[in-house]
């Protein structure tokens, strides 16, 4: 049974769009990196992160594949989305069914009327993170935090959420621009998207 805050968050959720700020801390708590951008989600399995700033980057899950485009490096990498599903807590959020399948979910009141949700992957080492923590309040996701296998902590704060707005259909489509390298991921049978 999903915690109440998570239920109200994903209840009737078709699309979601907002801004985020991401901070990464190393093992002794030093701020290593700060990035920000916009994030969009569409049930059941589409999401898009646009990192802005010095090295912009776009990550798009179109439902079949996850595309990572690095304009500065003129490279696109593509992987089957199932691989990505377990490793990104947000990807699992928009499809609560996946959540319970892949994660142990426990909730604790956060003392300010919101709820803190702890997600730990059912299969150790399956996801990119050892555990993730979400903070929700009044049906809105405020924060997501996860630590990776080097125990570096990523904290993502969300703001300006807009629910069930209409999206243009190509928001979650990606076609590699001319002249960039398109590569699969090591070990994945990712067929490279035919450039037609």
């Amino acid at each position, binding site marked *: 049974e999903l915690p109440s805050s998570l239920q109200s968050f994903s209840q009737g959720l078709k699309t979601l769009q907002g801004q985020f700020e991401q901070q990464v801390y190393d093992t002794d708590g030093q701020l290593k990196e700060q990035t920000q951008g916009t994030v969009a989600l569409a049930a059941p399995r589409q999401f898009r992160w646009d990192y802005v700033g010095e090295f912009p980057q776009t990550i798009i899950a179109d439902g079949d594949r996850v595309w990572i485009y690095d304009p500065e*490096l003129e490279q696109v990498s593509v992987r089957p989305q199932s691989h990505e599903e377990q490793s990104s807590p947000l990807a699992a959020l928009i499809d609560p069914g996946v959540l319970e399948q892949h994660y142990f979910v426990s909730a604790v009141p956060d003392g300010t009327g919101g709820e803190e949700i702890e997600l730990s992957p059912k299969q150790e080492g399956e996801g990119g993170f050892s555990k993730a923590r979400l903070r929700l309040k009044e049906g809105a996701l405020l924060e997501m935090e996860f630590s*990776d296998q080097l125990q570096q902590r990523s904290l993502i704060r969300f703001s300006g959420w807009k629910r069930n707005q209409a999206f243009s259909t190509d928001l979650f489509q990606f076609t590699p621009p001319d002249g960039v390298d398109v590569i699969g991921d090591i070990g994945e049978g990712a067929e490279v998207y035919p450039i037609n």
Partner: protein
Amino acid sequence: CARAPIRGVEASQAEQAQQQRELTLQAHDRWRMSGRVAVSANGEGGSGAVLWVEHEQGTDFELRAPVTGRSWRLQVREQGALIEGLEGGPLSDPDPQRLLRESVGWDIPLSSLRYWVRGARAPGPAQIEFAEDGWPARIEQQGWTVEFREWMDTASGRMPKRVFASRGDQRVRLAASRWQFEHG
């Protein structure tokens, strides 16, 4: 914008300046670079945020993939290399390049890249071409072509900002956001 190589007198002046620069870089061999890296070979590879640190004990090369935060760290020391953060736990090997290739599938000429990424030739025979501004445009070495697409000014002088190295269908591309040198 292909940077047209210079010839003749300017080239020899540029070569002088480059040799001087390479000596200075050799003297300051403790540095830290953060940015992004993309690696590919025969259609496979990956990219992510990179932190590259050269210090007394050796080299730490850390890679963090976007969104998932999946990361690993390669530590190169005199006695050999260790890679941590992978499913299945740390792995080690006396040969850092072999360890990286066999553990994450990245085949990178690390010891030479250490020079190239700073805009310098690695030891051994090399060809170099300079752009009109006298700064390296391209280095050919060990079968690799290293192109300096962009430079940036840092507290310790001008450093490469975007470096694209390729050999056959192998590619290593680095975009530096910060350079720091340890003085002392």
